[in-house]
């Protein structure tokens, strides 16, 4: 567990009304935007559990839209996020799923369509106090919090790929705080989440992308 700072107690500074339903929801969408990269043209949010039932009164819809726009939790533009998204050419819609049992009471699927025709679905949970995690990417289990500077890698599950990634860290003299590998079937898609104490430079991404078994490498910072 991350050490609790005085500013985790008196903080975060945020737009209300709820750290879980507003600030936490915003963080999920921010992480989703980071994972998808630029060029998002359409987002469909599928809300589950408490999110599905109370999203309007908590401004969860505004917060999620604000996260997609890249606003932070204390940004006063959150209230107008829907209008600002429209003006930016991003189509946003909300669906409540009150039938399925969610993974967590505050769960949302962020279904993003990009201008190049690709799409990505990210599932996030908001666990309270503004803290949130991404738990699925395109249906595959993963765990990503964005609390540290994080490198997200989508790769082929093949021998030597992890060694290639860690070598890139060593060669840029970066210390790895935590590293996790997620995969469904042997030899297919795999995801690596690597957290560092330091800011991860773009140089690492360049070095990692040299290997043809790496599909995507992205730095996630909030």
């Amino acid at each position, binding site marked *: 567990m991350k*050490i*609790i*700072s*005085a*500013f*985790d*107690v*008196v*903080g*975060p*500074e*945020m*737009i*209300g*009304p*709820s*750290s*879980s339903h*507003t*600030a936490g929801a915003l963080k999920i969408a921010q992480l989703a935007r980071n994972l998808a990269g630029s060029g998002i043209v359409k987002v469909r949010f599928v809300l589950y559990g*408490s999110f*599905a*039932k*109370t*999203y*309007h*009164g*908590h*401004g969860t819809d*505004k917060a999620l839209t604000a996260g997609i726009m890249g606003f932070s939790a*204390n940004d*006063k533009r*959150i*209230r107008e996020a829907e209008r600002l998204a429209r003006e930016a050419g991003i189509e946003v819609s909300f669906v*409540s799923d*009150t039938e399925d049992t969610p993974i967590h*009471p505050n769960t949302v699927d962020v279904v993003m369509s990009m201008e190049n025709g690709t799409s990505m679905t990210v599932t996030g949970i908001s666990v*309270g*106090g*503004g803290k949130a995690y991404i738990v699925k990417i395109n249906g595959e289990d993963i765990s990503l919090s964005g609390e540290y500077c994080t490198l997200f890698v989508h790769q082929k599950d093949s021998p030597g790929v992890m060694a290639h990634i860690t070598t890139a860290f060593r060669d840029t003299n970066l210390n790895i705080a935590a590293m996790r590998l997620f995969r469904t079937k042997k030899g297919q898609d795999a995801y690596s989440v690597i957290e560092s104490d330091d800011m991860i430079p773009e140089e690492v991404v360049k070095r990692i992308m040299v290997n043809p078994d790496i599909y995507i490498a992205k730095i996630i910072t909030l």
Partner: protein
Amino acid sequence: MNFMTGAELLKLCEENKKTISEIMQERETAVSGMAASEAHDLMLHSFSVMRDAAREAVIHERRSMGGLIGGEARKMDAYLREARPLCGSLLSKAGMYALGVLEVNASMGLIVAAPTAGASGVIPGVLLAMQEEEGYSDEKMVKALFNASAVGYLLMQNATVAGAEGGCQAEVGSASAMAASAAVELRGGSPQQCLDAAGTALSNVMGLVCDPVGGLVEVPCQKRNAMGAANALMCADITLAGIGSLIPFDEVVSAMYQVGRSLPFELRETALGGHAATPTARRLCADCGKCPTV
């Protein structure tokens, strides 16, 4: 420099002849790597956000997103000016500011979660009222916030401050404990007295359920924040009068956590019990029509 329990915190205070806020400030630089001045400035900024939120609602009436609250801080302000409040100036102001911050929170204004957004009115209520009535400097307010954050840290570390996990006792109760401790330090009480006041504040609301109407941070949350501020001030006075706490702080924290875990699911922020399940609340929800289904 770190501590995991109230007992360890008191030991550090005693060994170093320091206040809780001083120990917490030192801990912050040790665990976060932040310079002392940086941590100080960040806390001063937090205080200014709290003050702006509290005063905002007194000046402008703000309607909440869910439409259940709005305008309460202005009503209290008018009452304070025109009538002679039963609680006296300090306590009434603390209540007014606590109501006001929740109004700002519920209308998507800027607040500081302390320790949560749902309990964000308690600490500003107590601190601002004390500053206005007793003339404390902003520097003293920064100290008070570090003191409060030490207590809140212990609650997060050893119990919970989330209503969904521990009920309102964990949210407003924690904020009230934090504010009580801060008030005692402001008044020159000892570290032991700070934790006694915090423990007493927590004891007073043990078992309080989280039962928000429509699942929104509006009713009964807003008035519970005013109660949390009043409870904090009363517990500070009780302690400063030399009345101790039979059960030590750490044990009260642990008891609160146990009680929270044994609260039924319906009474932990799910809007299925308590006020949320009353006929009036159900009717309001059914007539609102903004949510898909409740």
